[in-house]
């Protein structure tokens, strides 16, 4: 009985410490790379403008699977009782989306493209954690990279 309680406490502390550190580092890396990639324009427009001289198009995409930590899952379990905004999951999804978009941009840059059109974002929860709470999410971003001629 007591051992169970201790295990839960240890997991909570580990989750809080490592999870917070990982999130902070991830956000720093996202913000840094977003600045680097600012030149790559992305649009959700379905078709490029008529007067754009396009030489080539390729399909590009980027995906990422991110897991929430034990502490956050615990906190959101409590939040589930009273309802309201679940900030812990908001940051999880925000990180996943921004990371996926960055990876898509990186692929487009490798291909020598200048812009990406018709960007779509797809989210899927691929594994369920304990008690059927969302454990991790996958985000896939894809679009058509355009090289100007």
């Amino acid at each position, binding site marked *: 009985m007591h051992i169970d309680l201790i295990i839960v406490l240890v997991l909570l502390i580990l989750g809080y410490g490592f999870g917070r550190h990982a999130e902070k580092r991830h956000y720093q890396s996202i913000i840094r790379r977003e600045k680097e990639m600012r030149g790559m324009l992305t649009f959700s427009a379905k*078709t490029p403008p008529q007067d754009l001289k396009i030489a080539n198009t390729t399909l590009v995409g980027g995906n990422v699977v991110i897991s929430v930590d034990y502490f956050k899952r615990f906190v959101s379990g409590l939040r589930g009782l009273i309802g309201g905004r679940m900030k812990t999951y908001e940051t999880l999804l925000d990180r996943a989306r921004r990371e996926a978009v960055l990876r898509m941009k990186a692929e487009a840059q490798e291909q020598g493209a200048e812009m990406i059109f018709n960007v779509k974002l797809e989210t899927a929860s691929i594994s369920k954690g304990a008690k059927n709470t969302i454990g991790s999410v996958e985000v896939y971003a894809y679009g058509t990279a355009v090289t100007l001629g």
Partner: protein
Amino acid sequence: MILSNLESIPYRTVSKQLGLVQGSTVRAKHVGKDILAGLKNVFGGELKAYTELLQEARKEAVERMVQEADAIGADAILNIRFSTSSVTQGAAELFAYGTAVVLEDQ
């Protein structure tokens, strides 16, 4: 084979529509990787093994779609969409579909 999720290719014209082509694959997770992912569930962060698994699976779905388009003599697949669904616990289906078309000669 030109792949695009635009509705048309800006610098080419479509001469013939060949209809819908699709490709799908169902992938299960590796037990060893699943245990590692379980650990990650405590600490949080990216599950690299899953990221790669899904990336490979998506590539395979696209390859199958391209094969289908090749078989009917298409030059390009337009308006490509992806979708993911979890079939059972621990397995995911990745599905890619689009419209196969023949392009006019340049």
